[in-house]
């Protein structure tokens, strides 16, 4: 590794390139408890249930038990990855935890995971928080750290338990979201060039939001359930999503940014072996596949069994769907998009990536 490992293209801003760092191993952990969308009769008229399932593509989801946090699932995923790949805890120099459902508001969860995983106290451990795009951004941070000469391994844990922040009477969000966590090990190797495009548009902050916090202080009224303009119920500490505004944003940004990545990385879309979307909802990503005229066979989905697991959905899809199918030299494009608004796409070359089978908590 010589010179500056990270270069930001001056002409096309926010195109980030890394050389010879990549994903060495991947694992995932989902809660044991399954919730079936066919049982949503209390929320959706019986005759509309099948249509909803077919449209969003979610047949069932995993929901974490009370007291089980994203970090617990992430801990298991990390232990599995370390065991399957004989990774010594003291060979990990950086630990990143990407989540919107951390254990506490203070402290951050990453130091807790450092301690629990038996990583040395000289580990750099910190949380990263963003929306459903979070994995792509956090992976870029992992690549940046792993590019540094004295950093050996970066462990990126991405876990979400949206079941704790979604109202069970919310017809938009409750049928959609599931809980899961993943571990991604990033290190140097013969990975060639990786390209990331990471973008932000905070003018769309209202599209996906939990209203009460610091801007709107938490009071007793935060716990009062209210109906929003679509007739859905949630309180001030639960997530609100305007599905139409998210769709408007994603259809404007996502296919276009994927095409842009193809141009700046010099990889035509038909040379891409896997296009892994954030598992937002099946209707939406099928539409993008059609718009891009991309081969649907190369677009893996796990949304039918795990739902939308927010930022975790890209690595979960890779772990659950590419296990035993990913080949050395495969070109993989991932696309994350969501709250912020925030979206990111990355083009990676996969080389010697060891995927552990999905485990249950």
């Amino acid at each position, binding site marked *: 590794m010589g010179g500056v490992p990270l270069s930001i293209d001056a002409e096309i801003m926010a195109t980030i390139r890394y050389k010879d760092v990549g994903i060495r191993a991947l694992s995932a952990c989902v809660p044991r408890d399954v919730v079936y969308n066919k049982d949503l009769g209390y929320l959706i008229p019986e005759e509309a249930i099948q*249509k909803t399932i077919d449209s969003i593509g979610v047949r069932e989801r995993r929901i974490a038990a009370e007291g089980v946090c994203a970090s617990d699932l992430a801990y298991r995923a990390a232990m599995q990855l370390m065991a399957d790949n004989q990774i010594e805890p003291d060979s990990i120099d950086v630990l990143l935890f990407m989540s919107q459902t951390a254990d506490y508001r203070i402290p951050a969860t990453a130091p807790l995971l450092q301690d629990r995983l038996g990583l040395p106290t000289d580990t750099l451990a910190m949380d990263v928080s963003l929306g459903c795009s979070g994995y792509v951004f956090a992976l870029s941070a992992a690549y940046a750290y792993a590019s540094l000469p004295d950093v050996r391994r970066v462990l990126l844990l991405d876990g979400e338990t949206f079941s704790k922040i979604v109202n069970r009477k919310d*017809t938009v969000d409750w049928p959609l979201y599931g809980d899961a966590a993943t571990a991604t090990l990033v290190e140097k190797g013969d990975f060639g060039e990786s390209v990331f495009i990471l973008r932000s548009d905070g003018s769309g902050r209202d599209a996906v939001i939990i209203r009460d916090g610091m801007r709107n202080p938490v009071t007793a009224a935060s716990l009062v359930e209210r109906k929003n303009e679509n007739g859905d119920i949630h309180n001030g500490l639960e997530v609100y999503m*305007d*599905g139409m*505004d998210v769709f*408007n944003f994603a*259809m404007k940004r996502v296919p276009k940014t994927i095409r842009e990545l193809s141009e700046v990385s010099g990889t035509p879309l038909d040379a891409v072996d896997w296009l892994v979307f954030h598992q937002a909802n099946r209707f*939406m990503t099928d539409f993008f596949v059609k*718009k891009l005229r991309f081969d649907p066979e190369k677009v893996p989905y796990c949304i039918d069994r795990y739902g939308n697991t927010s930022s975790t959905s890209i690595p979960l899809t890779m772990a659950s769907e590419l296990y035993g199918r990913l080949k050395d030299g495969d070109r993989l494009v991932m696309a994350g998009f969501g709250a912020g608004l925030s979206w990111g796409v990355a083009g990676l070359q996969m080389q010697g990536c060891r995927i552990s089978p999905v485990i249950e908590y």
Partner: protein
Amino acid sequence: MMDMEDFIANFADQFEDTDAGDIRADTAFHELDEYSSLIALSIMAMVDEEYDVQLTGADIRTAVTVEDLFNIVKARRA
């Protein structure tokens, strides 16, 4: 030039159970039994594909009739 009849036909295509004859320019589409937020997404996708216009949630919410939506799309194309 955007044609109202084509737009209505494309609009009606997004519904499965609703009779196409029940969808006219002056139909208050939010009141159709089959209308849902998922149908709204189909309409947005159709408008993107057929007319290259990206409707927002507010566009869909404020439009009362199919013609209202037609006018939004038409204005945005101009």
